[in-house]
């Protein structure tokens, strides 16, 4: 430790006090800035000073995916082939029935594969950054989906990046229903004592309706943010937190945010209504999109995976 150094010059001391007061006032201003201004400052920092670190993480994620065992990847490929094979028959049936009913085809849902980047800094819990932005069709509120279900949604989309929140975020909420559409409710994040204990709570189920453990829930499409049919999780048990003539249930989500290194973002087709019903058609919840994310992350249109019509 250096010897004790006192600022002999009183005016310098006063100047230091003034400067520190100025920075304190600036920090309070930063705290009270309106949301759009805060987003602008944060975006500016992410796109400039912190960009090399974000790019480095993207590179590392890409390398770790390439290093993943071929047996695991082969297993996933086999599973997807089985899903696609089953879906082809359903697709033909669907087309035929639609033809009989003279219904037009659904708008196909389009997915953009993106890398999930977590900053790991205080205050960013439940948030992540995607390496795809408005140039790839990602918009504010685009749903983010992993292999087995809903991961979260985009909060703010920029040209080449997007900031998103997962279901552990305190502000996460989604309208849900059972797969047959008979029971509706609202799913919200319920923080545990520690982050690992975070889980989902289904609220607002009418008292006369009862859900058995193991019942799968999907997005209802109400609210206009999440399209209908994205798997969310399964009922574990009834919660004690019921109020009035409503029931609440604890859910086990299909997706664990900690596992997310890659995700699919559901993008709209020129503002047209998105449709994710292919996820849950055919009775059981389908375990993922029809094609895998492009792991080479080439940034070409190949990264877009379209589900069947």
């Amino acid at each position, binding site marked *: 430790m250096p010897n004790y150094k006192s600022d002999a010059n009183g005016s310098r001391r006063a100047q230091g006090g003034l400067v*520190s007061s100025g920075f304190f006032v600036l920090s309070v201003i930063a*705290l009270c800035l309106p949301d759009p201004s805060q987003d602008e400052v944060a975006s500016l920092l992410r796109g400039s000073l912190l960009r090399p670190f974000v790019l480095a993480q993207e590179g590392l994620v890409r390398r770790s995916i390439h290093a993943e065992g071929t047996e695991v990847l082969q297993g996933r490929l086999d599973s997807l082939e089985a899903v696609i094979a089953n879906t082809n028959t359903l697709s033909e049936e669907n087309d035929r029935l639609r033809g009989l009913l003279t219904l037009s085809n659904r708008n196909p849902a389009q997915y953009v594969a993106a890398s999930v*980047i977590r900053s*790991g800094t205080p205050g*960013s819990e439940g*948030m992540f950054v995607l390496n795809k932005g408005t140039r790839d069709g990602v918009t504010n509120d685009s749903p983010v989906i992993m292999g087995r279900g809903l991961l979260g949604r985009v909060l703010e989309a920029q040209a080449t990046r997007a900031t998103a929140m997962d279901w552990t975020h305190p*502000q996460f909420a989604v309208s849900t229903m059972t797969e047959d559409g008979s029971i509706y409710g609202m799913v919200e994040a319920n923080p545990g004592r520690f982050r690992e204990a975070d889980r989902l709570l289904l609220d607002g189920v009418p008292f006369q309706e009862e859900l058995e453990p193991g019942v799968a829930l999907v997005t209802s499409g109400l609210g206009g943010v999440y399209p209908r049919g994205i798997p969310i999780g399964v009922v574990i048990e009834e919660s004690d937190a019921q109020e009035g003539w409503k029931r609440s249930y604890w859910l086990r989500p299909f997706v664990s945010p900690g596992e997310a290194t890659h995700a699919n973002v559901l993008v709209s087709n020129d503002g047209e209504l998105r449709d994710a019903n292919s996820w849950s058609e055919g009775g059981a919840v389908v375990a993922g999109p029809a094609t895998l994310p492009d792991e080479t992350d080439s940034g070409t249109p190949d990264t877009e995976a379209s589900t069947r019509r």
Partner: protein
Amino acid sequence: MRPPLRVWGVVGFLILLHFGLHLSLGLGESAPDLLVVALLIAAREVDIGRGAGLGFFLGLLDDAFSVLAFGANTFAMTLVGIGGARTRDLFVGDSLFFLTSYLVLGKWMRDFLHWIAAGEGLRESFVDTMLVQSSISAAYAGVVGLVVIAISGLGWETVR
């Protein structure tokens, strides 16, 4: 007062290492909070204005990924920078006990200020956040800070 270049070198290295570990490698909380270690080390060497400025800058960087609690890190780090610089006028010692307490309390205080500034909506329970998680991370930052001081040769003889 003009801090030695070595101090700025160590601070710069710690900032790069912090974002390298937290952001590039994605280690999250398993990596120590090197930003607050850098700030606490520098704050003992610079005047109060620079301490506040450094805290403001580092807090702003931390806030870049904090959409809903934006400004909480900036607020906390600025106050820690001011407090760290003020301790030079109040405490002259460089004993191991003092340095450990300084680093641990500095980190704990930073988390506490962040907890207050984050707002009620995002705030988790005081016991779990401050008494358990922050105490552990403060001890972690304290140990890492001592190691940094020892190997960087910043002139704090007791630790070396």
